[in-house]
């Protein structure tokens, strides 16, 4: 798999606080990577490092094959755009002037693309209205338009739906999907709004206390979260033998517990196990959501 962004053993320390601790990540090309973690987990710190706003204390990251210590990293950064925390826009300027300013910073020779870019983010009718008078959703979209100036193929969005109303959230989601599908832009989206992220992401990375806890694809997550029967038995080997005989898919995760991914006849299963001297201690039907998966992963007591 081709990765746009990778990090290994990345650490960032602020005085006595370790914001990132041996952090690693792998963002595949063309994906929408959902970067999940509670507030203060280290999501924004990592994004700041990638954007060159801060230097890592130790470890390294690679962007388009260029290591963060290589001089070529600045060239790689030209291929990315980012909206870190709040949209970076001049509040005293109009949407068009903001984009003109960004075009000058990038060094684009012509402003001809600006109307199209404004249309893409739905800000074509803002006229002479200054950005300070925009709604939060409009500011977010202008921030994305600025990040899109220069046609990047990797976009980092830090909490893009924070503070948006339901309509704004839908518009933001549609915009991200459109850019991903039509322009093949890879996204890294940090968020703690899991429900929203689950509608977009093709890959996930779960961060806690500055450490990457788990990375998996949406398909793997779907498999982990699908409907199942969790069974606790006295003899797990007998259970596996019986389930194999019945040709039923399952997953064992402890000495006494397993998840069964099929609609089973409970009486038949219990009888079959009883015949071989195995007791069924408990049986529960479960369906895991991204939220419960995250809570289980991070630790229920610790999760916000």
């Amino acid at each position, binding site marked *: 798999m081709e990765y746009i962004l990778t990090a290994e053993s990345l650490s960032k320390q602020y005085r006595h606080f370790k914001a990132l601790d041996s952090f690693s990540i792998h963002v595949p090309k063309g994906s929408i990577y959902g970067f999940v973690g509670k507030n203060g987990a280290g999501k924004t710190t990592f994004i700041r490092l990638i*954007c060159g706003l801060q230097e890592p204390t130790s470890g390294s990251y690679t962007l388009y094959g260029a290591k963060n210590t290589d001089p070529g990293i600045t060239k790689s950064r030209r291929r990315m755009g980012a909206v870190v925390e709040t949209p970076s826009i*001049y509040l005293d300027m109009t949407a068009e002037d903001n984009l003109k300013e960004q075009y000058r910073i990038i060094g684009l020779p012509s402003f001809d693309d600006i109307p199209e870019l404004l249309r893409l983010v739905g800000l074509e009718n803002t006229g002479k209205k200054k950005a300070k008078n925009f709604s939060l959703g409009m500011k977010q979209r202008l921030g994305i338009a600025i990040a899109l100036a220069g046609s990047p193929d990797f976009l980092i969005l830090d909490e893009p739906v924070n503070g948006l109303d339901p309509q704004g959230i839908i518009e933001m989601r549609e915009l991200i999907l459109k850019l991903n599908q039509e322009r093949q832009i890879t996204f890294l989206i940090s968020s703690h709004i899991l429900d929203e992220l689950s509608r977009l992401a093709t890959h996930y990375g779960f961060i806690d206390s500055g450490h990457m806890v788990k990375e998996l694809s949406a398909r793997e997550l779907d498999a982990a979260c699908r409907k199942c029967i969790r069974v606790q038995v006295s003899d797990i080997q007998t259970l596996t033998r019986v389930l194999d005989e019945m040709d039923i898919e399952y997953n064992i995760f402890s000495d006494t517990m397993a998840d069964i991914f099929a609609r089973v006849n409970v009486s038949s299963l219990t009888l079959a196990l009883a015949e071989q001297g195995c007791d069924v201690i408990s049986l529960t039907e479960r369906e895991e959501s991204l939220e419960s998966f995250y809570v289980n992963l991070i630790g229920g007591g610790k999760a916000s």
Partner: protein
Amino acid sequence: MSRLLSADFAKLKKSRFFWLCIIGMAVFGLYMKIMEYISAQQYLSRSPALHSMLSIYAMVIGFLTAAFVSLFVGTEYSDGTIRNKLIIGHSRAAIYFSNLITCSAAGLFMCLAYLLPAAAVGIPLCGIETADFRYIVSMFLCSFVMTLAFTSLCTLVGMLCQNKAVTAVVTILSVCLLFVASIYISARLNEPETYQEVTALAEDGSVTSTRDVPNPGYLRGTQRQIYEFLDEFLPTGQSVILTRGDQGSPFLLMSAYSAGIAAAAAGIGIFLFRKRDIK
């Protein structure tokens, strides 16, 4: 860096505060020169010298640059737009230099905004002499380099402090304090070496004798040298000298001091800004 300069100058062109400063300085220049001419005609019945009142802007340029730089550079942090420059791959040194050059240019434009209208009115009203011209040119050059020192110091604070309000308070307050210090230094240096002691009869008040007595407040030796150095070295001290219009002032040396301050502030600023964590 040309791309950053193009963006920063475009931003400068759109800055309302910058144009307010330019208009304010132009009106100030016209007002001071015309009022001086009117009062000279009224009380002395002659025209004032061209150079008189021409450098009084040196007194306000420190405050204006402090306010302007803190707003111009502070907006980059408060609006978060400095991130756009870093994300796109511009080096920190280029970002610092671009801001420094733009703010310095803005400071010089403000000087010219005072000087040009004042000179345009002053030359027809007061006339121009060769001696005047040489003095005026060296005074202008000194004031320009002094403005660069002010902008370089304010840019240093503005680029390192990520809070616009704190930058404004620190820069304006520092200029204020340095001005008070410079005015005190100047007052101490201008104390007379001696003063006259007068002896008078108490009943009818008639003077019987006068004699020169050494002034205990007069600075001598190393202490005077230190005060003189600070007076000529500090940009605020130079402002006081230029405003006073001392013809015998060492303008070349003062310009060298200012250039040194501007270069040192830029060097320190870039060194520290490169290590700074941006939020």
